[in-house]
């Protein structure tokens, strides 16, 4: 099961690890698909962010939390979470600059404004959700800095 006592380097068995490595890119792509498709079908930033976070956790199980933490700069995940909040706020207040009300996304002077502005908001939400989930999981896994 593990080649060391430290939880940071614990990995799954070779079969599970290899499978996880193969599946991870597709899972991440599905997470992004869910995020971007929120405007026209089921999905959105919350679900998409959860899938992306799940991909990170899958990799952490497969290759050990220590490597994933270093590779993905997990200790900085609060910054991504805060950035998502700021991004959403910016998209929400933006219409005021073009004479609309707060959150009146149709006021943006771009083609299909409601769709694309919502898209940006969804990505911001996905960033906050996935960063929060990943940060929480790694905090529970023993690194209290993130």
């Amino acid at each position: 099961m593990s080649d060391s006592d430290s939880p940071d380097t614990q990995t799954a068995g070779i079969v599970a690890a290899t499978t996880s490595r193969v599946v991870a890119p597709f899972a991440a792509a599905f997470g992004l698909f869910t995020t971007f498709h929120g405007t026209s079908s089921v999905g959105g930033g919350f679900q998409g962010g959860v899938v992306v976070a799940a991909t990170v956790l899958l990799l952490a199980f497969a290759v050990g939390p220590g490597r994933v933490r270093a590779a993905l700069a997990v200790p900085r995940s609060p910054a991504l979470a805060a950035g998502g909040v700021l991004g959403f706020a910016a998209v929400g207040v933006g219409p005021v600059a073009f004479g609309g009300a707060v959150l009146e996304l149709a006021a943006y002077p771009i083609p299909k404004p409601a769709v694309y502005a919502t898209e940006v908001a969804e990505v911001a939400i996905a960033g906050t959700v996935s960063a929060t989930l990943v940060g929480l999981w790694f905090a529970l896994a023993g690194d209290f800095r993130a």
Partner: protein
Amino acid sequence: MSALLLPALVALPVVGAALAVLAGNRSAGNRLAGWISGGTLAVQTLLAVALAVRVGDSGAGTVRTVLGGFRPAVGVELRADPLAALAVALFAVVALAAVWYANATAVGGKTGARPDALLLLLTAGLSGVALTADLFNLYVVLEITGLAAYALVALGERGSARAALRYLVVGTVGASLYLLGVAYLYISLGQLNISKSNEFVSQVGLSSPLVLTAFALAFVGLAVKIPLVPVHTWLPDAHARASVPASVVLSALVTTAGVYAFVKVLYGAFGVEFLSANSAVGPLISALGAASLLVGGALALRESKIKRVLAYSTVSQLGIVVVGVGLGSRVGLTGASVHLLGHAVTKAGLFFAAGLLALAADAKTVEEYAGIGNRAPVPSAAFALLSLGMIGVPPTVGFAGKWYVLVAAADAGSWLLVAAVLVSSLLSLAYFGRILARMYFAPPPDSDRAESSDAPTGSVGASGDSSGGPSGTVGAANSVRALDALPVVAALATVALGLSASALAQFLEPAISGLLA
């Protein structure tokens, strides 16, 4: 500008919280995070004052904004009446004071977990509770408030994580029950706007099982948040084990928001006709309020830790507010509103004073308060004055609020409620009198310790709340000494509000009329 004011009051603290997280995430960014939080809340206070002025000027007494330019029935509406404006201002001011206290005493210093961002998120949730005009959004902002509050409790002293977990479980059950009630209402009414619900409820039938079920679920859910006896059991641990600034915002603000949410649901969504059609509901609410004020008062009498006495006193005082809410009359609601705001100011000051006394003289129990009036005169005097306000001695605001509720109970001919409010005043006289007597008339336990505590710098940061604080340096001592202003200002505000109680009631009049319409 006016269309931006209401959304800004909810969004600004959230943005500030995100910025505080970004700043605190860098090494040595802690000071910056403190400044960001303080600055955000200062701006928030100014916006709240601007809102209060605007609400006072407007003829109808309300300011409304629908987000995204939708119709109110479809979109999310924000709405401010005088009560909401005062509540938002109160939330901003007390949260600002809590941020100052937290930064001056370095709360959570050792763990690196800082309360700034949480206090800002909490302010956003609280302001949302005051301003939202949408039943589902009320659930969302209550949950934002709740989640920030759970985390704030967990930053406290030893045993706070356990208290926070219990608070989380109970609070989430309460919120879920409320959400279930909202779902029932949505099924029957097909919309969630609070002021529109009023007319829809009468169409569905004021006594129809669906409406009654929805009310019962929402009432029980919000009773946990207020909290009312017998679902108050999470409160003493959570409020007493939290750090001082967290205790302040929990006891003074979160409970206030809970009561305000209940008033909104009862009078806004169900309407005063619902109370007259179901004659048992109003007395039931008042009876639960009376039970809270008696049980809370009796339990406060048994406690030896000051913070636990204050926590039970919160249960008791909110009982008086709920008695006024259940009476369903103009005077009753006025009394409830005045006492709600007055209690928040007074209780915030009391928790600040208790925290400062713990810092200055390491006194946390009624025993240890012996002779503290000479050792730490300023916080002691403020504590004494605020206690008188809590007991309801004129000319404090505590007297004004209780008086309105008493008059309303007498008007309604509920002499049992009159007796309950009077007995609760006696109880609060007993539990605060016990503390005041020790503070000023008991000799200090042993004179050696008293002398060492007189040293201006030696005792700063000695309390468990502030471990890790920069104790011993003159600068830290000065910054902590400046905190003495907090309970003093609260005490003065208690008296000032009491003296201007009729003006306050007059300012709140449009809000009361709106609720009873």
